[in-house]
């Protein structure tokens, strides 16, 4: 036994040529993942002439913050930033509430009609109305060109619901039973027991919802027509690919039609991505657990 353990330790400590290659390759892959970000940041901080003469590769050349000054001096960017923050906060709060409630209710044992309600929700994972019928419904209920059109139609993700229900089902049941005997109502059990115990999964699902709302541009593209209500991603898309998508014969390389300099564009990219990068490390430790909970077949 002791010998076996020793051998195992030996196996772990041994530096083989294979493991050296493995570590090197993984480092390389991580660098490839990071490089595009580095490139964008380098462009955003580079001087006008350095960008025009295509010298920027890894690091900023002729360091300047003028692109940021210009971007952040535009009222439209702040307006879009505000819209996106409102949609992300309200949308995430709504989505989390509905998903948690659904996951809690449908994880109760002995609830008559539980199966029917679950099937009712799961069915929509496989059968959907598609883009146009959904568009017509959103228009029909009067949400066209309103900020609510950006979160109400996508409020509950069935996948996130399954992940959360699987997690809640795995919680120890005795606590709830004890609370019930003490006369706690269903609502009290949810708020005082289930939610505190489910914080890791709530953080994970919250991150997924928030990222989706923050990154969404397509719903804004089809539902929002008033420029004052444009979200950050939609504005960014209009800045980056102006005239590309709608006008036939647009120049693929954007030469000539290019109004903004590349550094201005890349500074906008940075501004609209930084908020995600700020919350990411805080929530990162949770989401691996969350995805694993979802991978267990419910």
């Amino acid at each position, binding site marked *: 036994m002791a010998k*076996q353990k020793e*051998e195992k330790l030996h*196996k*772990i400590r041994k530096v083989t040529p*294979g493991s050296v290659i*493995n570590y090197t390759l*993984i480092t390389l*892959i*991580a660098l*490839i*993942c*990071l490089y*595009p970000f580095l*490139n964008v940041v380098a*462009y955003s901080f580079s001087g006008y002439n350095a960008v025009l003469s*295509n*010298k*920027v*590769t890894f690091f900023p050349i002729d360091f300047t913050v003028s692109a940021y000054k210009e971007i952040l001096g535009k009222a439209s960017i702040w307006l879009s930033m505000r819209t996106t923050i409102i949609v992300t906060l309200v949308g995430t709060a709504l989505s989390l509430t*509905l998903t948690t*409630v659904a996951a809690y*209710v*449908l994880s109760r044992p002995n*609830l008559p*009609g539980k199966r029917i309600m679950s099937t009712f929700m799961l069915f*929509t994972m496989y*059968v*959907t*109305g*598609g*883009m*146009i*019928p959904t568009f*017509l*419904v959103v228009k*029909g209920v009067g949400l066209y060109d309103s900020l609510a059109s950006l979160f109400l139609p*996508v*409020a509950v993700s069935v996948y996130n619901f399954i992940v959360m229900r699987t997690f809640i089902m795995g919680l120890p049941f005795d606590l709830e039973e004890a609370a019930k005997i003490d006369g706690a*109502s*269903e609502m009290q059990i949810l708020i005082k027991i289930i939610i505190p115990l489910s914080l890791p999964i709530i953080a994970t699902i919250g991150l997924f919802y928030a990222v989706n709302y923050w*990154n969404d*541009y397509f719903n804004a593209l089809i539902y929002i027509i008033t420029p004052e209500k444009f979200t950050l991603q939609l504005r*960014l898309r209009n800045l980056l*690919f102006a005239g590309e998508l*709608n006008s036939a014969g*647009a120049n*693929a*390389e*954007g030469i000539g039609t290019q109004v903004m300099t590349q550094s201005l*564009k*890349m500074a906008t*990219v940075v501004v609209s*991505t930084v908020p*995600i*990068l700020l919350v*990411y*490390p805080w929530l990162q430790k949770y989401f*691996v657990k969350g995805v*694993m909970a979802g*991978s267990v077949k419910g």
Partner: protein
Amino acid sequence: MKQTDDKNKAALRRTTWKQIRKCKWLYIMMIPVLAYFVVFRYAPIGGIVIAFKNYNVFKGIWASPWCGFATFQKIFANKNFWNAVRNTLTLNLLNLAVSFPITIIISLMLNEVLHLRFKKVTQSILYLPHFISWVVVAGIATNLFTQQGGTINNILNAMGHDSVPFLSDNGWWIFTYIICNVWKEVGWGTIIYLAALTGVDETLYEAAYLDGATKFQRLIYITLPSIKPVIVTMLILSISSMMSIGLDAPLLLGNSKVQDVSNVISTYTYQLGIQQAQYSESTAIGLFQSAINIIILLAADRIAKAMGEHGII
């Protein structure tokens, strides 16, 4: 006999009724959730009827005349539609062929890493692109791959090569599209395999090690068979969505020069439905797409079960 049966049923009904009353608040809490599903999920499913109608915006859905399968005939006769179907399948198949093995290989590589801090940091970096929007990814990609002044072409030029038309040549565009997808999603895809890999029985490795199996043999005979169910499930899931394609990547990366290969079903539906307001046609395309997806899903599930694996349904 019949009487006791009825009695039992009545008793059962009574207890069920009692149970329902006891759970009153749970049902009340579910009302907003169910309302969401009725309005934003089931109403659009009901709206699919316009695929079989000659939809007129002014008449509304119900008053518009039925037209049977005429819309479908019209679509199936359209060359652009089949072009979109072909492009969707091509891009999805190529993406699957490249992403799927790379994801598994990177998972296996990460699983071999014993240095915990190194593993954590690299994993964080690998997951990061998943959280970046397609608008940003496409913006970055354009900056990198553009023919004139793109960073990659600058490097190629500096090395004495000619510029490569990454975004404006059909073949190269597909290449760029795949690269962007791999960069964005492969790292995130490893999570599920890494979760499965932590569940592999340690004692198997130890036994194999004592029997003198090499690292490679352990990989082939222990690791891969252990995660085979996950591989099969992921494969079924990917194959069953062969007809669906995210709209963001082709719409944002595509341009008029490469529309012969970048025009896919989702972008075609968008152009037809939103930009040209041909509601019946684009709804019919959506229905055709869902139908094919469900057929492939059922078929893939059957095949997996026939091969002795767990299906997913």
